[in-house]
């Protein structure tokens, strides 16, 4: 990325300094065991966390947890993507679909996916399937709503233009509705990915036996505080990487969008 015209080289330097400052504050807060209502006695120092991370990366168990979480995210997100986009396109474009399919979705939407954990355990036979269900649920609502929104925002003039160029209803759906809704769909996927990580980690902490969420929660239980922070950082990195992946795929699918908008998204 080119430096912004107004900041020049100063902006990257400021950003690096900002991160450095964060680590300095962390280091001294934990080193001096600061106790100002917020207590740092039990919080590991950056160096302890680094050592712990190195240790975890050398062992096999840590990777097993990561793989378990990734598999659940991938499954849950894939199901949510297929269902959310398909239903969103139908609900957005066909009044009949809106009237018959949308009310239950709007009814269930305000319930946070984590609140589904007990019911999900009852509904699904295995721990894996119930956690995947929670993950799907989390991603589904943002995807379906953004898809509906995208379809409803399609410029009617483009539909008119297509009909006066000889397009029938199937062609309009394929050539106008889907690409017209695409930017909004990608936004939905991006938000959905974030929400499904939140749901996955919560579900794993509550009911799991594997996964990064489980790893983090168990570490707390056995008083391995630096392992807790390693778990947190792992979740952060995995979430960031999956969002970046969505954005990358999104850009690839929408070459017509100006670069400026892409960088903003």
């Amino acid at each position, binding site marked *: 990325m080119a430096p912004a015209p107004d900041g020049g080289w100063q902006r990257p330097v400021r950003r690096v300094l900002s991160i450095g400052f964060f680590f300095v504050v962390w280091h001294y807060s934990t080193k001096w065991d600061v106790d100002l209502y917020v207590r740092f006695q039990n919080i590991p120092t950056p160096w302890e966390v680094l050592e712990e991370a190195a240790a975890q990366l050398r062992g096999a168990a840590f990777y097993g947890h990561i793989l378990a979480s990734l598999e659940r995210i991938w499954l849950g997100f894939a199901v949510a993507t297929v269902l959310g986009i398909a239903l969103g396109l139908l609900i957005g474009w066909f009044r009949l679909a809106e009237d018959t399919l949308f009310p239950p979705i709007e009814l269930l939407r305000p319930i946070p996916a984590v609140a589904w954990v007990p019911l999900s355990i009852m509904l699904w036979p295995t721990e894996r399937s119930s956690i995947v269900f929670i993950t799907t649920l989390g991603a589904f609502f943002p995807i379906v709503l953004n898809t509906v929104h995208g379809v409803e925002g399609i410029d009617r003039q483009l539909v*008119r*233009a297509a009909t006066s*160029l000889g397009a029938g209803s199937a062609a309009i759906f394929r050539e106008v509705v889907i690409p017209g809704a695409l930017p909004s769909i990608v936004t939905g996927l991006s938000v959905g990915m974030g929400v499904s990580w939140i749901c996955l980690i919560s579900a794993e902490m509550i009911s799991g036996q594997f996964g990064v969420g489980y790893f983090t929660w168990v570490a707390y239980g056995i008083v391995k505080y630096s392992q807790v922070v390693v778990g947190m950082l792992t979740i952060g990195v995995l979430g960031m990487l999956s969002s970046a992946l969505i954005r990358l795929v999104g850009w690839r699918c929408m070459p017509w969008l100006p670069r400026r908008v892409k960088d903003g998204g």
Partner: protein
Amino acid sequence: MSTGATGRIEITDLGIEFSRNGRTVEAVRAFTLMTTPGEIVALLGPSGCGKTTVLNAVAGFVAPTAGQVAVDGEAVAAPGADRGVVFQQHSLFPWKTVLGNVEFGLKMRGVGKAARTAQARTYLSLVGLIGFEHAYPGELSGGMQQRVGIARVLVNRPRVMLMDEPFGALDAQTRLTMQELLLSVWREVRTTILFVTHDIDEALFLADRVAVMTARPGQIRDLVAVKLARPRAATVIATPEFMALKARILTQVREESVRALSGRRP
């Protein structure tokens, strides 16, 4: 290219009403207009007089409340590729390249990729856009976008091309260039053009006949034959014949504009 026999628009006693919030707006009343195949007719009138509504009825976007619209003897029932529309702006598919936009109508007809590209390129060269095939509409200037819009319609070899203030959003210099381009393209394809505008100079420069409309509900107030020789140069607007026609139309349009303002009660 199309023969002289196609492109006859017949609008007979057209009436169009819109209902909105329980109130009825009569946009067009007893509107009658026939075009000769291959001619350019400009529809001129104050803003809100019903020009777009008439054009939309020919395109098949709105259904008449009264009267008939037919093209080459076939009643207009729905939009179709035989009546291409060039809109004022923002009507290209942003997700398709210039080539993809121009090929669209051919794709709808099931023309194969290679033939599609070849024909699209023919019309792109007609509007002077060779070299921009792979650009996206968002990367083009307003004038270039309108040229793509024209090529996209003409590639379908429509009976008529309907244009709704197509140059209205362009700056004066570009507008003039586009008017000249349209005339040179029309010399090649000779399709009937129904051209909506509120710019008297534009109407007179382009058209064989100018239909001056009354304030809403729109009717034809005067049908002015423009017998200026073709090809017309930009300087034609300074000739005495042009000035005389302009004076005649200007008087009428001003009367109708005043009527439109005084008639408009909230």
